[in-house]
């Protein structure tokens, strides 16, 4: 197993270098001049050039790229043009907010999605199942920024304006303050809940047709016990796999929701990096997101293998 993990880590580093190179090229060949963006419109050409030299943008592109990739191997993601701080330091500073939102959102998604999926699978075609399909289809289709604004309007803005009730703050971030976390996590959660409900429903329907379920039923176990004690555990691996994938994605920053709720996370940082042409910061956020996916995928693979002993590590 150690050999397997070592190979996966090497593979992960390769992926990171490849993504780093590709993003570097895309970011640097895209139109726009970061030095001019820093200097503004009425800086002279000489002033723009001074900024270019000060930030090392005057070096040939291949050299800049090699320096960058070399730094990457030493966990140096470069220095932000605008913040003039190490990119890694800035990312780590923003990570807790993004972790909080990702975990909160996933928890809500699971709390809504799993029971809904279970219930739908146990009575396919029933009222909950049909209603669930309609609601989840709607939620899957609804863009996060719309859901976010609606929740803000209905649960934070209107109570405050109509009744002077400050139920939830209208956007903002305070570390581990549930009043601030509730609405962004709910926005993220109900979007994801729809996926989990569908995933759970499919996995459970699949499990409920297996022989061991028939055996359990024939032993006289209640339907609830059959579903939760027997089928549920076996339906979990694909769900766990999905949680891992989502967690990896979400840790890379939840761009839209962080913007709508003024959430001080990595997604918001990525927006700033794009709008300010802060290429090292932009590259950093992309690579960080990639790294989250690579690492979490590895952890999930190991966890699933641990849960399901039929899975072996292929050499």
């Amino acid at each position, binding site marked *: 197993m150690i050999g397997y993990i070592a190979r996966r880590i090497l593979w992960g580093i390769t992926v990171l270098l490849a993504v780093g190179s590709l993003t570097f090229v895309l970011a640097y060949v895209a*139109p*726009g*001049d*970061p030095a*001019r*963006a*820093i*200097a*503004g*419109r*009425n*800086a*002279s*050409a*000489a*002033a*723009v050039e*001074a*900024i270019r030299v*000060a*930030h090392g943008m005057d070096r040939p592109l291949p050299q800049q790229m090699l320096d960058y990739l070399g730094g990457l191997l030493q966990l140096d993601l470069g*220095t932000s*043009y*605008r*913040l*003039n*701080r190490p990119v890694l330091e*800035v990312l780590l*500073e*923003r990570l807790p907010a993004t972790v909080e939102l990702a975990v909160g959102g996933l928890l809500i998604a699971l709390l809504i999605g799993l029971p809904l999926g279970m219930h739908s699978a146990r009575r396919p075609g029933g009222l909950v199942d049909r209603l669930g399909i309609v609601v989840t289809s709607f939620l899957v289709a609804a863009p996060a920024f719309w859901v976010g*604004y609606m929740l*803000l*309007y209905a649960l*934070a*803005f209107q109570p*405050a*304006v109509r009744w002077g009730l*400050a139920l939830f*703050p*209208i*956007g*903002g*971030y305070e570390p581990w303050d549930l009043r601030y976390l509730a609405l962004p996590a709910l926005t993220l959660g109900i979007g994801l809940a729809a996926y989990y409900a569908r995933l759970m429903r499919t996995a459970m329907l699949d499990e409920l047709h297996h022989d061991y379920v028939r055996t359990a039923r024939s032993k006289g176990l209640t339907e609830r016990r059959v579903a939760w004690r027997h089928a549920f555990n076996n339906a979990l691996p694909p769900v766990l796999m999905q949680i891992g994938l989502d967690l990896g994605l979400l840790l890379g920053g939840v761009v839209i929701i962080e*913007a*709508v*709720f*003024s959430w*001080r996370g990595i997604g*918001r*940082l990525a*927006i*700033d990096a794009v*709008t*300010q*042409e802060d290429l090292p910061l932009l590259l950093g956020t992309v690579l960080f997101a990639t790294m989250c996916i690579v690492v979490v995928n590895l952890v999930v693979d190991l966890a699933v293998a641990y849960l399901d002993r039929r899975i072996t590590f292929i050499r």
Partner: protein
Amino acid sequence: MDIRREHRLGLTLASVLVLIATACGGATPSAAPSVAGSPGPTTAASASPAAELNGTVSIAFVGDIQYWDPALAYDTVSWAASRLLFDQLIHYDAGTGLIPGLAAEMPTISDDGLVYTFKLRDGVMFHDTTGAETGEMTADDVVFSINRLLRQDLKPNPSPVGGAFFGIIAGADKVLAGEAETASGLRAVDPSTLEIELAKPDKRLLNILAMGFGSVIPKDSPMDATEFAKNPIGTGPYHLSEYTQGQRASFALNDSYWGDRPMNGGVEMRVNVDDQTQLQQAIAGQLDLMGDPVPPGSFTATVNDPTLEGRIHRRIDVAIFYLAMDTSAPGSPLSEVKVRQAFNHAVDKDNLVRIANGRGGPAHCILPPAMPGHDPACKPYTLDLTKASSLMAEAGQAGGFSTKLYTDTTDLSKAWAESIQADLAKINVQVELVLQDWDVLLGTITTPHEAPMVLIGWFQDFPDPSDFVDPILSCATAVPGGANSSWYCNEEVDALAAAALGEPDDAKRIAMYQDIQNRIMADAPWVPTTFSETVEVVSARVAGTYLHPVYPFDLRPISVGE
């Protein structure tokens, strides 16, 4: 200056720099203490602070505070923060009049207009982030602060516009070239006397000193802006008491501030707050002041909401939007003046104002309202399609031609560009629209003859008419990398503008700029389109006005209930 347009997907900085419709009588310096109102150290508020003066004012911005170092700060959010922490030798009064700031009185000016002598206030103390006094300001601090703007060894990069503004000081060129650390024209005569000698007479000096770049910091400040940001020290009424990058900055009062006590007990500045969220927070009372304008999609509902009566603040910006036409591209029909004049007769400016929800007004000349020299009678071109068509015929372009119009990607710019496109189609000109992100557009329009036409805006750096001529319509800026988007170069106009810079008689000087304006409009490098207006909502507990004609935001006179 140019500030990116406020509507960019709600992600960018707000527009700012502005104006109220006040007169600008005191906008130029006088030789002696003819001061519009010298701020003394006492006010009724400081003598007996009323309870409401202790409330903390909150303001939010879409953008972040990019620089704490006044040598580099060139965006509205950073300026709003700078205004709390730092002072300059010269300040503005409630309008555009210049008054002494750290200077004890307005400077004396030598007869040749070259040497300005400032007496500094006594007992002005610097404060650090704990509010502790770190020393008394002297002339050496002022000399250091200005030299620092010019020096090329400032980290992470030199000031982008230090040379553009402070390059007028004698010897500044040597500092900018890295050949000296101090400009020969900056002299601390004694701890409370400063002399500034110019390379040639230039009436802009006091306006330049009153910019955020003119902020005075201690002479032992680091030459690294990142180091400076860890403990920004200034002479302002507040100190930075708490800062979480990307989230919030809190400012507390300095008890021993030399000037008027602010009308509030502190300021909380929230950053990275979406403009729609700002609006909802302000209406619901969770935010006192919006740092960005009411988002276009909510504009009509907001300004017509009867419950918000008295809570909507408006300011006509000292800014102009215009269609710049490339006047010197070889072989282009636009290099023919009659074609450009025809365009001026063809564009329906009232429609552009309607598209902007009625904000601002139509622009007919270069100098915007509230800018000294603005002439409401200056209206050389009226909407007249017959005249436009005949001018096109005189230019041999009766059948029209095809060209391109570049602008940024905001909804408003796009809608304006489409309206202009439709107007020009009426005189047989087929216009292809090219929308580019601001940073890309910046590269396009600073490259000669890349964009035949560009629709863009210009916001004042300071309320002096030179700011709407020299940086954007002079031969010196019609060069690669320059901000002259119409590549307009008229040596006669340049000579007049150079003379106007040093003209000591204010009335004569204003008349010179009006003459310059008329000459430029006759050459028609632009179709001036609109003036802009900032509209914001405040919470119910706010008293006072914070939309200052020059400072992007002035939070000092704002008071809030507890």
